[in-house]
């Protein structure tokens, strides 16, 4: 790291001298004032985030049922989670979910954004259309797709009537082999439009002269996309990939609404398993341990992100 530019060195001591020459009471007030502004937020944070977090750590080491008193049992819940086949199955589902959620909507979002960036007329209309599923409530989206994929009168049946084989009697949400992928499809559908709009905004920040220069040099669309667009939106891309990882670990609402983790645990992920343990199985202490274990994975991802940033990656 080089030193400060010449000239600034003379300014800073002056400012410092001014501050130092103020009476002690004024200096104290200046130091305290920002904290006073922060105080309400700190207090709220203590009540709604830090307090419950500490309570969760405590309850994860108890046999608490969700109501009444709790008995301290040390790390028994963590040991149980480690051996629990349901947790392993849910983690595997989270991994499948993560792989699909990281690739499918990202690829569709990039593709959609690129297509949108090529048009000028009706771009706002398409952006709105792409964005609508994202702003629609998950309950509504879930109900729409439950009806569309209804095995009695849904699209599968209609396609079957048209002669498409093997689809007429598929129960997408009711079959153990389909359920996880079917719900993932719904979530991908709701998510990719949002990514497309964000990617488009990032693409619009790329200097158009770079594309002109590339065209002059004979680069085709794919090479332009690969060597100009992708590097140009890299910070956005990495940030959204990071958030996608975090969100895929936290996925809950669509699975809870559509399949509730079923049938027979076929679409159970860690968050729905945790909910089930806390509110249906009366194992709130155990659910807290599962939740904290999950948070541990998320923290590792975030540490990796901030480590890369600190090392100077353009993310």
């Amino acid at each position, binding site marked *: 790291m080089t030193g400060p530019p010449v000239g600034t060195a003379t300014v800073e001591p002056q400012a410092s001298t001014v501050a130092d020459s103020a009476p002690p009471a004024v200096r104290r007030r200046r130091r305290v004032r920002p904290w006073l502004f922060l105080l309400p937020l700190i207090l709220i944070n203590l009540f709604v985030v830090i307090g419950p977090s500490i309570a969760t750590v405590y309850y994860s080491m108890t046999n608490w049922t*969700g109501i009444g*008193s709790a008995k301290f049992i040390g790390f028994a819940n963590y040991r149980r989670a480690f051996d629990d086949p349901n947790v392993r199955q849910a983690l595997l589902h989270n991994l499948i979910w993560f792989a699909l959620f990281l690739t499918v909507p990202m690829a569709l979002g990039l593709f959609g954004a690129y297509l949108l960036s090529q048009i000028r007329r009706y771009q706002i209309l398409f952006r709105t259309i792409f964005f609508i599923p994202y702003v629609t409530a998950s309950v509504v989206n879930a109900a729409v797709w439950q009806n569309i*994929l209804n095995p009695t009168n849904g699209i599968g049946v209609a396609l079957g009537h048209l002669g498409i084989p093997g689809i007429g009697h598929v129960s997408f949400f009711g079959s*153990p082999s389909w359920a996880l992928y079917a719900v993932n499809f719904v979530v991908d559908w709701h998510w990719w439009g949002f990514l497309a709009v964000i990617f488009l905004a990032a693409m619009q920040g790329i200097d158009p002269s770079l594309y002109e220069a590339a065209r002059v040099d004979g680069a085709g669309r794919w090479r332009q996309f690969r060597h100009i667009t992708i590097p140009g939106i890299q910070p956005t891309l990495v940030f959204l990939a990071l958030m996608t990882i975090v969100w895929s670990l936290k996925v809950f609402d669509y699975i809870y609404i559509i399949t509730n983790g079923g049938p027979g645990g076929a679409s159970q992920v860690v968050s729905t398993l945790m909910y089930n343990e806390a509110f249906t199985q009366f194992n709130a202490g155990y659910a807290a341990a599962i939740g904290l274990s999950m948070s541990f994975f998320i923290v590792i991802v975030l540490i990796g992100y901030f480590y890369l940033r600190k090392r100077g990656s353009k993310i």
Partner: protein
Amino acid sequence: MTESATVTRRNFLAGTGLAAGALLSGSALAACSSQSNGRTDLQLWIDITGAANEKYFSTHVIDVFEKADRKVEVDTTFYQGQDLRRVIQTALQARSGPDLVRGASASLTQAWSKAHTLADLSSYAAKDHWSSKISSWALKPFITGSKLYALPMRVDTMLLYYNKTLFGQKNWKAPTNRDELEALAEEAAGHGIIPFGATNVDWSAASEWLMTVFWNHYSGPQAIYQALTGQIPWTEPTFVEAVELLQSYFNKGWMGGSTAKYYSVPSATMGAQFGDGKIAMFPQGEWWMSSLGQFFGSAAHNGNDWDWAPLPALQSGIRYPLYEIGVGGSLGISAYSSHPSQAAQFLNWYYGDTQQALQRMADVPGTYNIPIPFSASSLPSGMDPRSRRLVTATQQAMATGDFGYVTWTWWPPKSDTFVYQGLDQVLTGKMTAKEYCAQLNQIFRQEMKAGTIPPTLKPGRYQA
């Protein structure tokens, strides 16, 4: 920096004072809100869904009570069933929540009472003679030690609904035993009609309704009583065979069309198919009676009609008719309520005003059938005959001892949850019937050791 952007100490203190004042006045208003105009406000959170049902409850229960007791007002908040249980439990744990506590099941209510979140109602019961107003058998699941913690909200049983028009056209009769049932199912399936409607899409615990039916009508109430009291294990062949029988019905495509459809076709679609004659029969709880009408007749433009019959005996030696009996949730008083005696006044009115109670039973079939003593002649004359037959049949079953046990009342909480979650594992091929019963037995033994088994109703005759 401009003047307007500067925060002086005076401005800061004034702003802080205003904010604190607003907070304090808010708290004061909240404190006053439970006692306004000399009337006491009671909070009730309840799982009634649908505009018509909510309106009926507001006008025919709450308004009528408030007219009868001008010193108490009841503020009702409506929730979805599965949400209600969660929000009430969370609120009770935080020592807040409604004054009147709606419990989803007897086993859950018992868990709440053991956590000391429900008020002891024994003194109110003695003062207002609730034991003479409410059937004694229905109070039993809510007694912990010698204390009463809640009152039963509804008499639950399982029925075999059938499409009466379809049955008339095919010259079918409601089955009374397994041979008749299976012959009918074979014939219906041969005509391309799904023999039995079944779905758990809208209520994940629906699988326990099926296990309730198969254990009661195959294994029998005597075996269940012995298992509930720990005399025999759940691994007895009779329980395993009942699960296997249900599984075989699924494998044949008799239940809802297929196992996959059981998990993916919503109840509204399944109900519409039943109304249109694409499904012949539907094993369901008595509560379904209130919403079944939407799938039949002029409401569904199909000109069809429905009826119900007792579920058939699935093994020789099992009595017919036999009604598995339980209570559909409870009403209690929060241990943290500031107005427990006013809440008790509401309960006393709800269960004590027999005329109003019978009118509600008549108005909304299978929904407001609280377990109170009544004679058949006292039922309102305009009552739907199917609903009349239901309330008299369940009362008669208790009087003659021809009753069984529903899982959501007589099983302890974790075992009850496993009954339906474990059955899903069986139906999706992840577990055998034998493994299912073995795991149930293990959970049940743990709960028995922990003392969470609800008091079990002995086989016998119970006068209302």
